[in-house]
């Protein structure tokens, strides 16, 4: 069974994503913000991360950047699941790179909320296979 880390501050989304994951033989690990998410990634080294963007404490943008600039974590695939547009996510990463931070690759998949369970399941299966 694959471990999938879910990072989202919205309890309803966490329940929705966990249910989809369990129905697809994955084991969800649940966290509420980027800070919690990052420490869980380091502890559990999951097979996949499903990450929201707009969250308290540390946003998905910062967490994603931390993941992709850490040699021990950068290979873990990341699916962004957010109400924030993909264009904004990419622009914000570009802006941070312009300010002197390292460039980071695009996420493996970008899903804008709301997402259908079948679509999420399909993306998870494709990445984990």
């Amino acid at each position, binding site marked *: 069974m694959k471990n999938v880390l879910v990072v989202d501050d919205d309890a309803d989304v966490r329940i929705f994503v966990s249910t989809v994951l369990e129905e697809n033989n994955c084991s969800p690990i649940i966290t509420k*913000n980027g800070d919690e998410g990052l420490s869980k990634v380091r502890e559990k080294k999951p097979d996949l991360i499903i990450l929201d963007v*707009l969250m*308290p404490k540390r*946003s998905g*943008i910062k967490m994603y950047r931390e993941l992709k600039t850490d040699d021990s974590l950068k290979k873990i695939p990341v699916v962004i699941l957010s*109400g*924030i547009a993909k264009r904004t*996510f990419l622009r*914000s990463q570009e*802006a941070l790179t312009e300010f002197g931070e390292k460039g980071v690759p695009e996420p493996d998949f970008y899903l804008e909320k709301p997402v259908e369970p079948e679509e999420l399941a399909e993306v998870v299966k494709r990445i984990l296979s």
Partner: protein
Amino acid sequence: MKINKLLFITDFEELWFDAIKSLMDLKKAGLNHVVFLHVIKREDVAMRRGTGYLKETEVRLKEMANVRFINWAESIFEQGMECGAYIVVGDPVPKAVSAAKEEKIDLIVTGRHKKGKLEELYGGSETIELLRRSATPVMVHKFMLGSGKVNDKPFERPLLALDWSPSSQKALEFLVAIKDALKKVEIIHVISENKMKGLSKIELQKIQKYSKKGLDEACGTFEKEGIEVAAHLYIGEITSQIEKAAREREASMIVAGTTGKSGWKERILGSVPRYLAEKSELPTILVPGESRTDAD
């Protein structure tokens, strides 16, 4: 003292995204993270006879706030800044204090939240309660001025009101910390009319001399940091003189300390900061003294 992280409290009535844009001069002073807070008041979703808890209303109100915050956050993110949001149900002041503590906020920005005369008489507004309880500097933003104009550059020309208290020293340090966002600082000390009653001419001159020395020292602090500064001594009723100075010096906002006392006195907010927060037309930043801790 650094101003990296700001908590923007909105009820979507007084403060909108254009008010946040007016704060972006703080980027020059290190601001790189904005956190939004919207508190849905308990009474809006509370249990009522025959209806129970209004879960559907809560979901709808949260979703409305979420749509707005996502739109605002996109603009913040695209500038390469960090952004977060809280949409919660509860009492606004404790929620704001706890979010500020949780996020290690450097500046809280809120609206004036005008209340009716009766509420003012018995409890004051939520803003006043927040000022009483916050250990973090609070900006009471008045984006729309009474004249109908907008104050889109509040940090350009702050007026610092000094009373030589520890909290007013903190207010001075606050301005030094955001020096790169400022154009010119106007400093004022008001010798209270009441304080002068019954004093001899010599005693009055001593007060004047002491006040001027304090103003000179404050000017020196700013000049050392390369900030243009001017100092002024006013005499009279404190709040009206601060307002008068702000008008005469074309200030863009007022900065002052709160009482900064410890223990139970924490809950008492001086009449001057209270007046400035609620009545002054200009945005006001009120900085608590060192000894204060969050009273949550």
